[in-house]
């Protein structure tokens, strides 16, 4: 059989898109993670989920399911907004803990380590891993740790930065307005060049100097918990995020200029 360019082009399209269609129909075609960590292959813990396989895209909800850890413990340990416990992705930790002193980092590796200690699972420490103080407190209370382990945990404990990017929503309501005034002259670079993105929270708008009243005018409603991100708010209210984002961005730009 002799093939020419056109035949080959058609065959390539049929193979590629036919293959994708076929596997989509059977549900095998996945372009995102299934969020089920690998299990230990052998030894005492064979068959159990391995914390080392937790990835940045895993949400606290996924981790809670796979490792049977209460969401509250995970969320509190890492200072996450309670409303976002289920959907919070490990990789977002980097933005909360962005202002830690150089060399210290709280991120996905910290979650892996926390989960391993919490569940008493084996974990291969290949780098220095830091944990928030709250996480250490929870481990002391709930995990079975030796004296030596507790001491070493205290050495790697870092406090939740008093950063405006923190998602901890425990601030009392009346402090919010003060916060606006205190920070309105600061330039906070939590989101690059004060550009609203999917993860931008109302608190960040306040930090950029936008007034709560102006935000409420646009929302035509009371401002929600400042730690809520704008995209989630839009989704909840059934508002189009792009439109809301545009109006909010105008406010931010007015403050900037």
């Amino acid at each position, binding site marked *: *059989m*002799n*093939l*020419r*360019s*056109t035949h*080959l*082009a058609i*065959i*390539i*399209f049929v*193979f*590629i898109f036919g*293959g*994708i269609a076929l*596997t989509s129909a059977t549900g*095998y*075609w*996945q*372009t*995102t*993670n*299934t969020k*089920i*960590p*690998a*299990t230990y*292959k052998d030894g005492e813990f064979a068959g159990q989920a391995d914390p080392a*396989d937790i*990835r940045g895209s895993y949400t606290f909800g996924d981790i809670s399911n796979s490792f049977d850890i209460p969401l509250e413990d995970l969320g509190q340990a890492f200072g996450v907004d309670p409303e976002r416990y289920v959907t919070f992705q490990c990789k977002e930790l980097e933005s909360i803990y962005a202002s830690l002193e150089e060399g210290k980092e709280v991120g996905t590796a910290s979650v892996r380590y926390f989960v391993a200690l919490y569940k008493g699972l084996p974990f291969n420490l290949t780098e220095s891993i830091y944990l928030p103080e709250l996480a250490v407190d929870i481990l002391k209370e709930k995990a079975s740790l030796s004296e030596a382990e507790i001491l070493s945990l205290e050495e790697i404990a870092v406090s939740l930065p008093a950063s405006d990017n923190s998602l901890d929503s425990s601030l009392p309501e009346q402090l919010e307005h003060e916060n606006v005034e205190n920070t309105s002259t600061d330039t906070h670079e939590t989101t690059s060049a004060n550009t609203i*993105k*999917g993860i931008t929270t109302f608190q960040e708008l306040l930090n950029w100097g936008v007034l709560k009243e102006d935000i409420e005018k646009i929302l035509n409603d009371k401002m929600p918990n400042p730690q809520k991100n704008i*995209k989630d708010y*839009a989704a909840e209210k059934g508002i189009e*995020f*792009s439109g809301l*984002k545009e109006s909010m961005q105008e406010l931010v730009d007015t403050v900037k200029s």
Partner: protein
Amino acid sequence: MSQPVIQQNSVPILKTVKIRKPKTRLYVQLFFFFLVALITLNKALSEIGLSIPYISNGSLHAICPFGGVASLYKFAAVGTFVQKIHESSFVLMVIAFLLAILFGPVICSWVCPFGTFQEWLAKIGRKLFGKRFNHFIPTKVDSVLRYLRYVVLFLVLYLTFTTTKLIFQDVDPYFALFQFWSDEVALSAFIILGVTILLSLVIDRPWCKYACPYGAVLGIFNLFRIFKIRRAPSNCTDCKLCDRSCPMNIPVSSGNAVLNHQCISCLSCTSENSCPMSDAVEFTTKGGK
């Protein structure tokens, strides 16, 4: 024993009418290049809450068949993929293997956007250096360097296996090209992209020839693929136009079938494209027609 006589100087009176070169491959390459560009753009947009309708927003890794290859060991051992790789990479890997068993590395010449990118740069190189383009490296050195990509392949597989991370991302110029705005791209990947761009101005497809681990995997299929580039000596005038047209510098005219691990099934050498004689170089099964 008498050797078959190949007429070298006289052009046999055969069907020599030359048709215009078909642009089919270019169109297919353009399609995949822009499809991949749109998918990566859509992925970036999805992070700020926007999206392009009807276009997937999977990551570049999710639509890369080499991710499947790099994950093979982990998949066999524990049933999961290395970080950032998903089922889609596996599906595409299988499709690419099926295509390669039949037709060789058609993914390289018809689909891979990085191959396409290098071909576009080659057009500039050809303008700058004329006939010297793609002939700067001495043949002896070149033929050794062509095996370098198997060393890269071994290293990538070994490091992926030992770290269970997609280690190749840090040196992957394709990732750097399509994600240049992202902070996920390592400096090393940008440097390799820069070097590849410069080399592409003097050599056709330098990354594919010397470094691409995926090209290395697909190249192995050339040894036993079903459709091959076959030359009919009886129709050949030995003008060597097929040799000159080959981006991978394969001496098509010196054998009856191309088994070279570097052939990418671009069909440039065939009678449909460069060879002036009808039915002299064809893409056929054994005994063809």
